[in-house]
């Protein structure tokens, strides 16, 4: 296993990185987990319950034993189970608070049954629901983490409300899951592939990237993006793609992740591609040296789940190789940063 030195964040993989791999004929859950272990992409193992577990959240005892058996025999350590709060389950209305609580609670119980120490939800799970989940989380020993994903940043009102809420409750059983999509320095190259496939001209993609890179909050730039896209004759579907470019890639300064501590229960090592540059492995769209510094300075010892997401845009790259490269890069950065922090 690519173990980092004691006292440092631990590495791991979410099976979400292997979304395209999971769709290949003949590929099953057991073989996928075994291959993650064989390729030394642990020790942490995360998965999306509604992606990897058929029949979730109603797993019978035999299914629970089977999943646990697969994980145990792989030697990997369950790190986090991503669960969902499908507020739009019924047409025409959102789930009530009672329904939302029940929808999530059964999944937190499922996470505990499978041996996961953390269950991930999104910001659609409100502080009111989280507060109701707290006794269950405590009883089961499963921390419930709210993922902070682009376009959210520390300034977004729901995030500020969560921050206040976590500070007030100050419990280890509720907290944040920072996702690096919120703090990116450039739009990944793989986006170009997706735009090309969607028939979007390179000029329009370049214009959108340029607008993204300009200073100022991204949300304020939507009208300008729509105006320019309409001028260039983009179809509604294409405008949707261009808007996704804004919402999927946040521009928060990586140092701001420090503000989320100490209430961090897990970290998503979101990334879109590692390249072998003149100075070794590097990520053109996420500034990992700055991220690593924050995590080490905050004495974070939980997992960083490598979450390769360029598969949403392109199938040109091998997800296993990409996670391997990110692990090699992160191990080096974390250990180098640790020696700096210790020396201070």
């Amino acid at each position, binding site marked *: 296993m690519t173990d980092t030195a004691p006292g440092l964040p631990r590495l791991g993989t979410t099976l979400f990185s292997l979304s395209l791999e999971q769709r290949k004929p003949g590929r099953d859950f057991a073989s996928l987990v075994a291959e993650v272990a064989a390729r030394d992409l642990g020790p942490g193992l995360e998965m*999306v319950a509604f*992606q990897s577990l058929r029949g979730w959240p109603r797993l019978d005892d035999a299914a629970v034993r089977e999943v646990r058996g697969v994980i145990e025999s792989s030697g990997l350590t369950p790190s986090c189970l991503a669960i969902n709060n499908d507020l*739009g389950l019924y047409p025409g209305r959102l789930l009530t608070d009672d329904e939302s609580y029940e929808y999530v609670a059964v999944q937190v119980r499922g996470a505990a049954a499978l041996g996961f120490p953390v269950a991930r939800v999104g910001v659609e799970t409100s502080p009111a629901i989280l507060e109701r989940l707290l006794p269950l989380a405590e009883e089961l020993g499963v921390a419930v983490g709210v993922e902070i994903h682009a376009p959210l940043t520390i300034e977004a009102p729901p995030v500020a409300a969560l921050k206040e809420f976590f500070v007030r409750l100050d419990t280890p059983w509720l907290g944040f899951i920072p996702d690096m999509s919120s703090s990116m320095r450039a739009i990944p190259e793989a986006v170009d592939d997706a735009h090309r496939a969607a028939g979007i001209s390179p000029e329009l993609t370049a214009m959108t990237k340029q607008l993204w890179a300009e200073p100022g909050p991204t949300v304020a730039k939507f009208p300008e993006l729509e105006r320019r896209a309409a001028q260039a004759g983009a179809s509604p579907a294409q405008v*949707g793609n261009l808007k996704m470019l804004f919402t999927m890639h946040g521009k928060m300064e990586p140092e701001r992740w420090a503000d989320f501590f100490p209430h961090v229960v897990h970290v998503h090592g979101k990334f879109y591609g590692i390249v072998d540059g003149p100075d070794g492995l590097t990520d053109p769209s996420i500034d990992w040296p700055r991220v690593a510094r924050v995590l080490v300075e905050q004495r974070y010892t939980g997992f960083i789940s490598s979450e390769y997401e360029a598969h949403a845009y392109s199938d040109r790259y091998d997800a296993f190789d990409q996670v391997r490269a990110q692990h090699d890069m992160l191990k080096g950065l974390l250990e180098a940063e640790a020696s700096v922090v210790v020396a201070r």
Partner: protein
Amino acid sequence: MFDKYIVCEEGFRTLDDGRTGGVVEVRMPYYRGLALSMVEAVDLVVDGRPVPAARTTFTVHGNTYRFDQLPRTTDDRWEMGERAQLAFETDEPLAAGEHDVAVAVRLRISYMPVPGGGRDAKRLTLAAQEI
């Protein structure tokens, strides 16, 4: 990225229950499974002619639904990568040979800023029927 996998290259066939029409196999354009109540539409166009939803049915792992039943179906799911069978009736029998099949899937995902789903179109070959 999932859009190009919506329409399956294999499994295109005629109905085998005496009605005229066919079956096209389709996959979910999303990274995880969703309850059928969140599948708002699976629009089908065959050889340029839209097939009304009332003339289609949707089958996942052996369970068949009419589209007007899906909004109430919260206890069954279309899993990621699972091939669902979209059966459709036509006025005339489908001829053997090539057909243009276009499918647009609309998904209701509460936390997405844009409507979920995707579309795909492929030219599929219908094998000559064995008699």
